């Protein structure tokens, strides 16, 4: 059962392993705080929609299951959107169009189709939670690199007048601002994935340990 939770974080990490949800990854990973906000929103939507869909999987006719899933997902996305608007206007404007776009986020829809529509409640919730955490962690990693190199800052919290932001001296005056653009995000995602693949290859290199090599 615990495997359903952890697989989304490492082995089937939606962004870095399955290359799903790249659109919000490229769009909102320019600022660390936005990445955290987006990640939490997606975790909420994933867990709730996976739970409801796995409960309703007998009721939803197979032919119209995708529209059915979308209605359920859209409900939770609307909740996230209205909550953000009310309690964190800064985050709401920072994420912009990418909040309503969670509806068609391929991670959310993909988990509904591939997992929640076939499994029982608890595994579905754990699966959603794991996938959401995996998405959030990879988004945070990419945003961490991008904000530090691309803007020379690191924004941890931003709400009204309370702003927790580290400014890196030197780098913030002449940052590599190409990394703050979506094109720069592609570079960062590419190199992070390359790094992960290098680690995977190193761990499964031949002649190391036959048993361990097989499991990777």
């Amino acid at each position: 059962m615990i495997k359903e939770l952890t697989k989304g974080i490492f082995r089937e990490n939606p962004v870095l392993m399955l290359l799903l949800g790249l659109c919000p990854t490229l769009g909102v990973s320019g600022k660390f705080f936005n990445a955290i906000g987006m990640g939490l929103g997606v975790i909420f939507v994933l867990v709730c929609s996976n739970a409801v869909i796995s409960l309703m999987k007998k009721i939803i006719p197979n032919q119209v299951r995708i529209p059915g899933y979308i209605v359920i997902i859209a409900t939770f996305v609307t909740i996230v959107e209205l909550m953000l608007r009310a309690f964190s206007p800064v985050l709401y404007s920072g994420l912009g169009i990418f909040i309503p776009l969670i509806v068609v986020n391929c991670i959310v829809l993909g988990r509904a189709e591939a997992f929640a529509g076939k499994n029982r409640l608890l595994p579905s919730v754990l699966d959603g939670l794991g996938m959401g955490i995996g998405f959030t962690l990879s988004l945070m990693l990419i945003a961490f690199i991008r904000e530090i190199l691309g803007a020379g800052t690191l924004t941890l919290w931003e709400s009204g007048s309370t702003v927790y932001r580290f400014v890196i001296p030197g780098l913030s005056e002449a940052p590599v601002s190409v990394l703050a653009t979506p094109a720069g995000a592609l570079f960062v995602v590419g190199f992070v994935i390359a790094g992960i693949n290098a680690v995977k290859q190193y761990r499964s290199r031949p002649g190391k340990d036959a048993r361990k090599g097989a499991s990777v």
Partner: protein
Amino acid sequence: MKRKKQEFQFSVASSPQIRSPRSTARIMVYVILALLPAALWGVYQFGWYAAAVLAVSVAAAAAGEGAICLIRKKNTLSDGSAVLTGLLVGMNMPPSVPLYIPAIASLAAVIVFKGAFGGLGCNIINPALGGRLIAFFSWSSAMFTFQTPRTILESGLTVAGATGDAMTSATPLTFLKSSVPEYAGSISNEMEVLSLKHYSLSKYDAAVTDKINSLFGENFCYGYFDAFFGIKGGCIGEISVFLLLLGGLFLIAKKIIHWEIPVAFIGSFAAAVWVFGGLRAGTGFFSGDVVYQIFSGGLFLGAFFMATDMVTSPFRRGSMFLFGIGCGLLTFLIRYYGSFPEGVSLAIVFMNLTVPMLDRLFIPRRYGVKKKRRVGVGKGGNA
């Protein structure tokens, strides 16, 4: 002993049987030789700091290639391509740029735009231009600060178009782009703006232009001489059109680059300027100043040394022409209607991406096979 050698000479192996004595390293040395005069001219005009920019670019590119070699466990440093990439990056830098910019641009060129794609021969865009664009979009203000060349400072003229101090001034292209609209309708050639707004030109330019005008009874504007011989603001390696042209002709004579690409590039650009270039000066169609436009900016450096990069340019003659024409038209559009004063590098990078498609348009007919249909995706194809 002798017999054994003969056996070796006639041994038959699998193809390729015809080998060229030319190696990658040799080609790179020729290209570097062809570039050096223009680079040295830039150093002469902009001082030793420009030499430091070039040195840092080359060193960073070599260091980046060294790192790639360590990762791939394969020596690709000795083929000289990294040195060439570094030199091109340096020549594409403004002379007064802070030194970390060429260093990062060179590293990005070699590691991101070449190494990450699989090394020399696998890169999809020209690495040097990729590195330049990283710098261009990251540190725009530093990349748009241009030093006044030595010859103009020594002419003792007041430097017009100067920002702040006389050491930096606008390049002719930036100057024209911002000044021509003010005079639209009241001039017959946009070159007049250079004189009207007192854009600083060298004393040689004035002398030569006056001489030619009195000899032939013409009325040429000032500025062509400076533009051709490289007495103007700009990137280190792009200013001397004369030396770049000599270098380019040397490479064509050595059959290292194909003449089709520079000819199509400069030709299509010139045609577009001639037809539409006069519109912004209010002189109507077919009145653009072709000569000054092709001698300005990085057109010659781009057309002879960047667009012709063997890896990122097409193979077939037809696709080379299309490639060059695309570069020329895009350069024209960016220079006249884009937000940047110069668009050669952006145009070449964009056309680099189309090279595989362009080459597919001109797949040669196999002997004994009728040319039936164009090879397309999903149709299987016959090639």
